[in-house]
């Protein structure tokens, strides 16, 4: 009886692995070309990120230090921290929005890919954890190390957006 249960469990596991491998193959296939709106949004997103990250470079900090006024230095530190936290808040809301929209569409979809759903869920959890970490890091140490991590989180978010769209092809992710 025990052996029979073990064999059944093993067979089920093999079937699951085969299913995930097949779904991964499908998910890895090239996606449809971007529409003009997608391209416009992608260009705008890249430009916005570039402008945002520019503000967290060293130039402004160095310039304000040359002025030798603690009030202006404090104002710069306060404002940069505030903007960084707002950005993190907005990106967290974006990630939640993508996931909620995906879940809504997934409920109506007929042929869901298990591996795609697992990948998306893992990306979502990873992003939320990263945003929490970023927010705490900015609160404690300030936004000095934000640039690199912001690029990283933004890349995951963009990937999640694209992947969420391809996982349920009928849907349009906003």
């Amino acid at each position, binding site marked *: 009886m025990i052996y029979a249960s073990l064999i059944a469990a093993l067979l089920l596991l093999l079937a699951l692995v085969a299913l995930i491998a097949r779904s991964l193959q499908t998910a890895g296939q090239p996606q449809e070309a971007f529409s003009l709106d997608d391209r416009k949004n992608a260009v705008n997103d890249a430009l916005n990120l570039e402008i945002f990250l520019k503000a967290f470079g060293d130039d402004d900090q160095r310039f304000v230090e040359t002025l030798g006024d603690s009030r*202006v230095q404090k104002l710069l530190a306060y*404002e940069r921290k505030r*903007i960084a936290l707002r950005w993190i808040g907005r990106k967290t809301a974006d990630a939640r929005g993508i996931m909620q929209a995906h879940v809504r569409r997934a409920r109506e979809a007929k042929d869901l890919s298990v591996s795609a759903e697992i990948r998306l869920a893992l990306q979502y959890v990873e992003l939320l954890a990263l945003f929490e970490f970023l927010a705490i890091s900015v609160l404690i140490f300030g936004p000095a190390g934000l640039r690199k991590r912001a690029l990283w989180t933004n890349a995951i978010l963009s990937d999640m957006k694209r992947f969420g769209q391809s996982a349920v092809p009928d849907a349009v992710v906003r």
Partner: protein
Amino acid sequence: MERKILPADVLSAYEDFSSRTLARIPTAIERLIYIASTRDYNSGLYHHDGLASRFSAGAAAKALQFAHIEAFHAVSAMPLRELSDKIQQYMKSSREEPSAFLNAWQKLEPYRVAIPMEVDPTIAELFVSNVKIALAILRLHLLRQTDRPSGALQLPSLGPRSLPPLRS
């Protein structure tokens, strides 16, 4: 922003507006304020008589909207040194007393009307934040100038080149 994504008539209107009007306005901040002034506060629609007469009203409005977003992004991406420099130039060109100008800009925050409607909210906040800091820098500059007699210690220049003092 990519100009390639504009329809042909809007692109022509934009190029005409850039070469005939914007090219004559010396600083990015003045260009931004000028373009924002072509927008109706109540409807949010852009209008420019000359441009609408040469092109259609719709194409002119879209060209102005595009130019507005482009000018806004240019100002938002400026480092604080350059932004302070440009606001100082604008303040001088306004012929207003620097203290009165700074009072009005710091209290009324009129620069908020220069924000286009269709921009990323974080970039809009960054713009407001940068202008606030630049105004604080100009206020500091002004205070130090009034505190010290002429010939006293000079502040670091705001721009790459040495700027003339706020008051001659």
